[in-house]
């Protein structure tokens, strides 16, 4: 749809509704990660956390293109994918805090969240695992007409899982959408330094998988690519691939201050912050600043309540909640 950049032209109501939902979702993801950062500093979140700040448009945009019966597998930086899929923020916060009301009862923690009721097969603590889990979900999805989505980072594309699963999904014609969130760094190391060819989309194309590179900080661009890919998968079968170019605005994990970034790089990416872009787009659609502020206030209140709920929840009791090694 052509849009006049100097004059606000409201998109169709359904479309505007989608962008408002997407914006609210991204805001929730950002607010959640900021809250977890705070709770980590206070000692309420244990171990380590890998924050999704800066990458919100990717999982939000993709999730807007999915149906409830679709499957998602994500990474240890997976809070965003979980929330974008509809996982309850209070439950997720409680999980990170190790509380019994957590999404996995406090057994999983930040890196391994699973919520099958929301189609989240899991978040995988070792890179590439999400690609394999989604490939397997593709075997199930092929029977039901669903689609399985794998989120993974640029670092995974140098892993055996990535190459084996792209090939496997292609030769077995599986309905899998592979989404590479290229945030330019594998942990502390620049992607281009350790990725031969430095062209991840070309790697997927080499497997004869329809592939597209998109602006991963633009919710609408991500959604358009995902919607087209999912439509192609549902109609023609077989996998599709999206490389979303984005940027992790924080360190790899809580121990990483990000000192390896070249001067000015972070500032340039902050100019392209996905929430900022989404707000500008909404304003161009004629959404008033009051409307946007109302969404901001609603999400802030929701997050405050979620954190309060999580903090009030008890820790799991190994005696009261005994574990079983095996499923019956």
């Amino acid at each position, binding site marked *: 749809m052509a849009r006049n950049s100097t004059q606000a032209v409201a998109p169709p109501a359904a479309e505007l509704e989608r962008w408002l939902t997407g914006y609210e979702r991204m805001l929730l993801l950002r607010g959640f990660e900021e809250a977890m950062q705070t709770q980590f500093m206070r000692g309420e979140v244990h171990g380590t956390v890998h924050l999704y700040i800066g990458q919100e448009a990717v999982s939000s945009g993709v999730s807007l293109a999915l149906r409830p019966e679709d*499957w998602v*597998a994500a990474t240890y930086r997976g809070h965003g994918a979980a929330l974008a899929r509809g996982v309850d923020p209070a439950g997720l916060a409680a999980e990170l805090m190790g509380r019994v009301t957590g*999404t*996995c*009862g406090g*057994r*999983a923690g930040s890196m*391994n969240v*699973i*919520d*099958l*009721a929301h189609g989240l*097969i*899991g978040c*995988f*603590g*070792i890179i*590439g*695992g999400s*690609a*394999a*889990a*989604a*490939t*397997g*979900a*593709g*075997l*199930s*999805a092929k029977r*039901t007409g669903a689609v*399985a989505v794998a989120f993974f980072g640029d670092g995974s594309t140098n892993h*055996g*899982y990535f190459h*084996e*699963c792209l*090939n*496997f999904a292609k*030769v*077995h014609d599986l309905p899998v959408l592979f989404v590479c969130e290229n945030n330019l760094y594998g942990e502390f190391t620049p992607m281009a330094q350790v990725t031969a060819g430095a062209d991840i989309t070309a790697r997927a194309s080499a497997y004869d998988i329809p592939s597209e590179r998109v602006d991963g900080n633009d919710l609408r661009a991500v959604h358009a690519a995902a919607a087209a890919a999912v439509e192609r998968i549902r109609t023609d079968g077989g996998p599709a691939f999206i490389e979303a170019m984005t940027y992790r605005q924080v360190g790899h994990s809580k121990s990483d201050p990000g000192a390896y970034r070249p001067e000015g790089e972070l500032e340039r990416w902050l100019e392209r912050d996905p929430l900022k872009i989404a707000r500008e787009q909404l304003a161009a659609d004629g959404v008033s600043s009051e409307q946007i502020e109302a969404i901001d206030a609603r999400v802030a209140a929701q997050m405050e309540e979620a954190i309060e709920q999580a903090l009030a929840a008890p820790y799991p009791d190994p005696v009261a909640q005994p*574990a*079983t*090694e*095996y*499923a*019956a």
Partner: protein
Amino acid sequence: MSTLDFRTAIRDALAEELERDERVIFYGEDVAVAGGVFKATPGLFERFGADRVFDTPISELALAGSAFGAAVTGLRPVIEIMFGDFLMLPMDALVNQAAKYWYISNEQASVPLVVRSAVGGGGRFGAIHSQDPTSWFLGVPGIKIVAPSTPGDAKALLKASIRDNNPVLFLEHKRLYSTKGETLEQELLPLGKANVVREGTDVTIVAVMKGVHDALAAADLLAGDGISAEVIDLRTLRPLDLDTVVRSIEKTNRLLAIEEGPVLGGWASNLVGLASAEALEHLDDAFALTGGDTPIPYSPTLEDPFFASAERIAETVRTRIGVAAGAS
């Protein structure tokens, strides 16, 4: 009672479960059109079609990873990892993902997955096609390890493994594929239950797979000396049926466990330790007779003495365990 051979037992178990449950699928390298490199699975592809029985790329990470993903999203996959030695490749999918899922998901879903694999020495396959992978998986909570010794057991245990709701490693000893045996009356055998295959009073010999036949042959030799050996086939190595072993040593007061793998970190020495902890007052002696501490050799003159023969088992009972005729 009719007889069947080991290969047919495997194929029949798969065919019956594929027939019984739509959710069961079977895949691996050369298992479909070619019927498996050990010729254990011919005819299944023709009977059940390419949607349910198919050949895959030589990609163990994708094979096991996808089986995990398929299992947690509603299918009941059986895969073949051609040689047990190749299980080193998909350890992440099996150990980090499949085995832990039931627990860390807070029991949201089980992982009904079977990994069939040909294992064991004596076939002149050399160091990297002859290993028994048991010890690599023995200490992994959440996984089951099944190791049948006869065709009848193999069929009933494989059917039970496919119906089990947990990840099961199903080991098929290469030297047993051509053996014949009686069919069992019961359709299924419970996982985690050992079988006393020969009753005796002087010493308890515990083994799995091919080792059971060696132990029975040793018991025959010992009987000639007036020594009465009880032989226990564990059938399942995890969970371990310690009770049956302890009940036996309460009677015999002596334990010999036989394993192809090395002594340190193996199941046999582990069993000796557990039995000692449980029933030290009943034990006069306990010993693990195992493979050597080098890689498994190739040449017949090197490989043959590497594993415990019936003669060496009998000799160990006479000398190391110190059982004299009529000792009890």
